């Protein structure tokens, strides 16, 4: 079970509170910062351990992409037979070139119109893809909704979100009526969390 929207918001808030107890950011702004932090961690971790985000879905010809589709992962199969991804500009060859015809024993798939298309067209294919983190910044997302990020990334997302919140607070210093001391504190927190975040990223295994 990964962290929920309310939990990670609470953690980011707690980090902010520890440096700036009197400053209050509205929830939607914190959620946006959590979202950006998640995307930062996601793109970074895709480089290190893309298998964490690899998932599969079953698709018939013309099926929609899953809502959390980030991009395809170059793997698919039909009843155990490997299916390759091809660009749409290769469709014609696989349909009409007698030496390269797509068949159920040599299937392919492609994506256009943001839909899955299989070759041969009647085939249902199991496709491997990268899953995007749940959009926790969406106001319609319930507070008890869990993120799809691996649980071990919670701490680094928390640090990243706090770092982004401190940046937001510095940007909004005038609006939030921050005193000079509070501004200095926010600046110090930004630097500290920047270092913690970098250190945690360096520590990442794999």
């Amino acid at each position: 079970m990964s962290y929920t929207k309310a939990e990670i918001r609470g953690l980011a808030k707690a980090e902010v509170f520890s440096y700036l107890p009197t400053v209050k950011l509205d929830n939607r702004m914190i959620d946006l910062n959590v979202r950006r932090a998640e995307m930062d961690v996601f793109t970074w971790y895709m480089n290190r351990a893309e298998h964490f985000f690899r998932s599969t879905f079953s698709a018939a010809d013309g099926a929609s992409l899953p809502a959390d589709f980030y991009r395809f992962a170059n793997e698919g199969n039909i009843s155990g037979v490997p299916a390759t991804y091809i660009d749409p500009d290769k469709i014609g060859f696989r349909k009409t070139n007698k030496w390269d015809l797509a068949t159920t024993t040599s299937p392919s798939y492609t994506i256009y119109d943001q839909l899955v298309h299989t070759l041969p067209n009647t085939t249902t294919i199991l496709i491997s893809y990268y899953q995007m983190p749940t959009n926790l910044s969406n106001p319609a997302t319930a507070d008890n909704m869990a993120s799809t990020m691996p649980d071990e990334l919670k701490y680094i997302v928390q640090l990243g979100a706090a770092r982004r919140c401190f940046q937001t607070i510095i940007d909004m210093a005038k609006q939030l009526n921050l005193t000079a001391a509070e501004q200095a504190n926010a600046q110090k927190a930004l630097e500290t969390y920047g270092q913690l975040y970098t250190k945690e990223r360096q520590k990442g295994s794999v």
Partner: protein
Amino acid sequence: MNHGDFMYELQTRLESGVVGVSEDASTISIQLNRAYQFAYQYCLDHFPWFYVTSHSFTNVSAILYSSLAFPFRKLHAIEVPTATFGMAREAGFDEYFYINGIPQLAGRAGNPIYKVDKSQITISPACTGTLYYYKHFGDIADTDLTANITTLGTQDAILHPAFEEIVVLNAMISAYSRHMQVSELNMRQQDDMISLIGAQQDKLNRELEPLVSWQKVIPAA
């Protein structure tokens, strides 16, 4: 995020910035639309399949861009299933002939060819098939702004989600630059704005950096 979400975030961040900038919804939309155009270029490089769109055509030789469902950006491929090989190829210079100085194509059944010019794609011979092209969400002009805002407002799929912060930062830079031009700022305020724009630019560069390295590792499209 859709256009409405972007509007909320940009408005909040501008109004509550170190130098508070307040803009009406229409101006905010213009800044955002410019930012979409900027991010689109990156998105097209990183996620080309995100924009590939199909268009079926029946026994025609010329397809006008204006007849397509989405604004045309770039041709991807033309599939002609009745031909020996199912893809039309781009005509070579030796395959043109001229009538009254106007170039014509010398394609034939089994060997279809095409040319792309300013406003249309011409296929020779006239045939049935599917056109694959990279769509765009439209260049925004003042006259069609309202229609575009309405469309973009409900559409989550303008840009790949990896580009959200890039859009907001870019729109902030545009908004600050505009503020500098239209407001009567004293020297001190101008300096503040310049350093604010510089700070956003630094943030933008930092956001773009991981996308470049990320692209190298993930299997290519």
